[in-house]
C-alpha cells in the first residue's frame, strides 16, 4: 500500500468531523476462496435428476454467497459485507439498476476495484467493474431457498429471457459474475473459480436442469 502525504490541515479537521458518523468495517474475509467440487465428481450419481440437483446445490455455494446475493436484493437497496447489511451510503436501485439520478453507482464504483489510500484501517477497497449495477428485481435472490432460485433462473420471465445455454454462457463468462472471485481487498471471494462454477452449471443443464 502506497502512502501519500496530504498536506492540508483539512485531514485533521475531517478526521474528527466525520469519524463518529458511520461504520464502514468490511468482512473478516477468508483470503482464499472456499473449495468448489468440479462437475466430474458428481458422475457417480447414476440417477440423472439426483445428479442434476446435486450439481446445482454445489453451484449454490456460489449463487447463495453474500458476494452474489448482495446485488440481487429483494428490495430497492443493495446489501453489503458477509453480514449482508443494507448498503451504506443509502442508495437505491434506480433506472436499470444503475442508481439514482445525481448519485448513480459510478459516483463511487469505477471500472475496477480501487484500493483505499485515504483511510485504510477499516475499509480496504472500493469494489468496481465496468458493468457495475444491481440485478433486476425479478432476479432477486435475497431470502429465497436454493430451489426457488433454481426455478427462477430457468424461468425466461425472470431471467432476462435467456435460454439455458445463454444462462450457462452468462455464468461462465460474464465479467460482473466473475467479479465475485475477484472482489478486491477486504472481501471474501465466492468459492472455487468461475471456470469450475461454469462447468457445474453446464453439467446441471446437460443433466436436465433439475430444481430439487
Amino acid at each position, binding site marked *: 500500500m*502506497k502512502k*501519500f*502525504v*496530504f*498536506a*492540508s490541515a*483539512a*485531514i485533521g*479537521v*475531517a478526521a474528527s*468531523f*466525520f469519524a463518529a*458518523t*458511520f461504520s*464502514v468495517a468490511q468482512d473478516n474475509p477468508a483470503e482464499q476462496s472456499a473449495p468448489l467440487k468440479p462437475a466430474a465428481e458428481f458422475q457417480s450419481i447414476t440417477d440423472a435428476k439426483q445428479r442434476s440437483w446435486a450439481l446445482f446445490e454445489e453451484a449454490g455455494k456460489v449463487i447463495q454467497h453474500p458476494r452474489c446475493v448482495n446485488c440481487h436484493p429483494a428490495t430497492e437497496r443493495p446489501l453489503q459485507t458477509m453480514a449482508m447489511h443494507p448498503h*451504506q*451510503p*443509502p*442508495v*437505491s436501485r*434506480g433506472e436499470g439498476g444503475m442508481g*439514482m*439520478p*445525481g*448519485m*448513480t453507482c*459510478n*459516483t*463511487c464504483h*469505477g*471500472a*475496477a476495484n*480501487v*484500493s*483505499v*489510500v*485515504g*483511510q485504510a484501517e*477499516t*475499509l480496504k477497497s*472500493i469494489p468496481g467493474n465496468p458493468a457495475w449495477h444491481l440485478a433486476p428485481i425479478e432476479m432477486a435472490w435475497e431470502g429465497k431457498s436454493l430451489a426457488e432460485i433454481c426455478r427462477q433462473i430457468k424461468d425466461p420471465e425472470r431471467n432476462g429471457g435467456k435460454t439455458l445455454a445463454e444462462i450457462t454462457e452468462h455464468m461462465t463468462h460474464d465479467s460482473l459474475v466473475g467479479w465475485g472471485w475477484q472482489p478486491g481487498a477486504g472481501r471474501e471471494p465466492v468459492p472455487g473459480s468461475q471456470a469450475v462454477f461454469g462447468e457445474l452449471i453446464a453439467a446441471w443443464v446437460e443433466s436436465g436442469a433439475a430444481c430439487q
Partner: protein
Amino acid sequence: MVTFTLNGKERSFDGDPDTPLLWVIRDFEKLTGTKYGCGVAQCGACTVHLDGMTRRSCITPISTVDGSEVITIEGIDGPEAKAVQAAWVAIDVPQCGYCQSGQIMSAVALLQVTPKPNDADIDGAMAGNLCRCATYHRIRQAIHNAADAMEG
C-alpha cells in the same frame, strides 16, 4: 503521464498513478474547495463532476481520469449552478460549511438531469452527502427553490 481538463483547463500529472484525484486537486492544483471528509466514499465531501457525473474524488485514482473532464466547486457553472448558488445564499443553507461544496456538486448534478425534483428525487441524489450540522432541511428547500427559479 495523465492528462485531463480541470475546470476547462488542460492539466497533466506525472506522479504516482494511484494518487487519488482529491490529492491532485488540493495539493498539486491548490484548489481547496473540494474537501477531505472520510477518505472512503462514505460522506460526499469530496464530490466533483467527472465527465458530467458526480464522482467521489477521494477514491478515484488519477490514472482513471486520463482524458476526462473534471469540474470542481471552483469551476462549476451554468444555469443549474447559478440557481443553486443563489438559493443557497438566499436561505443561508450552510452552518459550518465543511460539507457544502460536496452538497452543491450533488445538487447541481441532480438538477442537470432532473430539473424539477420531488422530495424522493432529492433524497435519492443527496443521500450520500452527510452534514454533521444537519442542514438537510435547508438543503432540500434550497434545491426546490433553485428548481422553481430555473422554471421561471
